[in-house]
């Protein structure tokens, strides 16, 4: 049997979930670009004017900092999506 109210609710919940997931993805990708392409490349010569424990900062970002940042970004993504999944499941009453 067709139940329009339930189907509409389901569609709206799915749309909310997807919008939140895309927002999170875009936010993390902005950080990704700022870290790798920004600090590691574009501003590297300027950042090299500062130093961090024996490293010129731009050089450190290109060879160490960006990589550490990338690992953290995926960790944050996996945790945040897990929360989002849980909320979505609760909304749908599963």
């Amino acid at each position, binding site marked *: 049997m067709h139940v329009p109210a339930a189907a509409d609710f389901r569609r709206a919940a*799915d749309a909310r*979930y*997807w919008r939140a*997931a*895309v927002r999170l*993805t875009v936010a*993390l*990708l902005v950080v*990704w670009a700022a870290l*790798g*392409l920004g600090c*590691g*490349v*574009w501003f*590297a*010569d300027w950042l*090299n004017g500062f130093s*961090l*424990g*024996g*490293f*010129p900062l*731009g*050089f*450190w970002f*290109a*060879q*160490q900092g*960006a*990589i*550490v940042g*990338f*690992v953290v*970004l*995926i*960790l944050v*993504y*996996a945790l945040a*999506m*897990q929360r989002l*999944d849980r909320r*979505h*499941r609760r909304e749908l009453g599963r």
Partner: protein
Amino acid sequence: MSVQAWTFVMVGLTFSLYLWLAFRARVRDTEGFWVADRGVPAPLNGMATAADWMSAASFLSMAGTISLLGYAGGVYLMGWTGGFVLLALLLAPYLRKFGHFTVPDFVGDRFESNGARIVALCCALFISFTYVAGQMRGVGIVFARFLEVDVDVGVAAGMALVFVYATLGGMKGITWTQIAQYWVLIVAYVVPVVAISLQLTGNALPQLGMGGNVAATGVPLLATLEQIHRDLGFPSYTEPFTGSWDRVNVLCTTLALMVGTAGLPHVIVRFYTVKNVQAARWSGFWALLFIALLYLTAPATAAFARYYVFDGLHGKTAEELPGWYHTWAKTNLLVWLDDGDGRLEYHGPQQQAANELFRIGGLPSDELARVRSAHDAWLASGGRDGVDGRVVLTAKKLSGPDADILVLATPEMAQLAAWIIALVAAGGLAAALSTASGLLLVISSSIAHDFYFRILRPSASEAQRLRVSRWAIGGAVIVAGVFGVFPPGFVAETVAFAFGLAASSFFPVLVLGIFSARIGTVPAIAGMLAGILFTGGYIIGTVYFGMSRWCFGIGPQGIGAIGMLVHFAVALGLQPFCAGPSAVAQAMVARMREPDS
């Protein structure tokens, strides 16, 4: 025990382990053969992905390349790790939810076209064959250098091993051996560097030691390198944008490597082997964590090796040169052409005329021998006779040592124990074999699954498909071995091509297929073709036909980034004028975005 005896022990032990694991993991159906029954836990899949991804090039050549490039080496470090962020956030969870066996599967089904499937299939085959040739060669080279057997014998031994475990266990066998190979390669990579860091800087963490002081002099290591580089005419080690690595090229190359990494089929298929979407996200995290262990160590190896090269070689007489110099001089990866004063001098491009240290590169060994004897005649006659070999080799761009020796030679430079040097050989083999097996699986799945089953004979039975799968992987091993024995001369250039192709074909089409519900067949195929033709044309044009680098001066390595933009622009530009996807494909997209339905 000698290094060679230790190497036989280490290689024998690790090879037996791989075979035993493969025998335990043998499979009976295509689900097991292609996606390891989709039952690999996320951390283990992370290890397997890490081993799959880190190739002979990552293990053997990367640190050496960074050592010679300094700051610009970060292009490889950031490019090859940053791609995993794109993979984990944009592709892996959705492709896992989509739940097929291969990348061409997704392209063909989402865009409802066998034409798109075939384009994707050809890209997958090209990328994988390009890559696998280098791996098999890597296996042969490690055998040749450490066990003093012929390169071809080494290739054959590696082939036989991969043949057994890939045909027996398919993806399942490959997964379990890759997990073991990860540990072999990471231990082999990190242990010597920790020992060197302790010795050189007194710090057990190489990542900190690199920024610390040289214990013998009390001067910071990086400052010491800067000083040496300045004195001997090299561009700065830590300052960005020297020589041909200007800002635009560093940016584009980094981006192209990132996007290319995310589009490599043998890495993507690893995410099909986990239980569900959440496990796919987590294995993205574990994979990059395990990869980062090596990638954060490599720049330290690079800086230490750079120091040892100057410290050990520059200004030394033949008697003073260290043992490792003599080992590697035999292979011609280090070539010393003296100016007559009996001291080796190593100079950079700004004092090119004084440099005496070269490498054989792609030169045939008899030609190098001719250069050497002409040089000796030139020295003996005081310049009246013969030819100055330094001028000849400089003109051929063969100044400086070969990047490949640095990882293999650093344990010897620091005079570490024989068993550690043997461990490095086993690690190099693990890195090459794990990547080769992942690539071979993609090649055989393209043929057996995408071509035979999805296009040629959709009615094939399970038993038939499994048989074709085994034949295909066996055939692929043999072809890869032939490439290893008779390496096509263009391998080095084609690696840039493989990344460019992955960046300009797979990555955009997958992202569009997942994140746009409105892109249909025509824009997708047009986008793929535009990306491939632009990138391929530019690389072939600039490398082989002397075309100028008209696109912002970008070199062939970085053009994939622009190719990706061309692909996106063409596909999105055509989309309003072409038919959208059918209701079936739209439902597919909707299902893919919902985590658990």
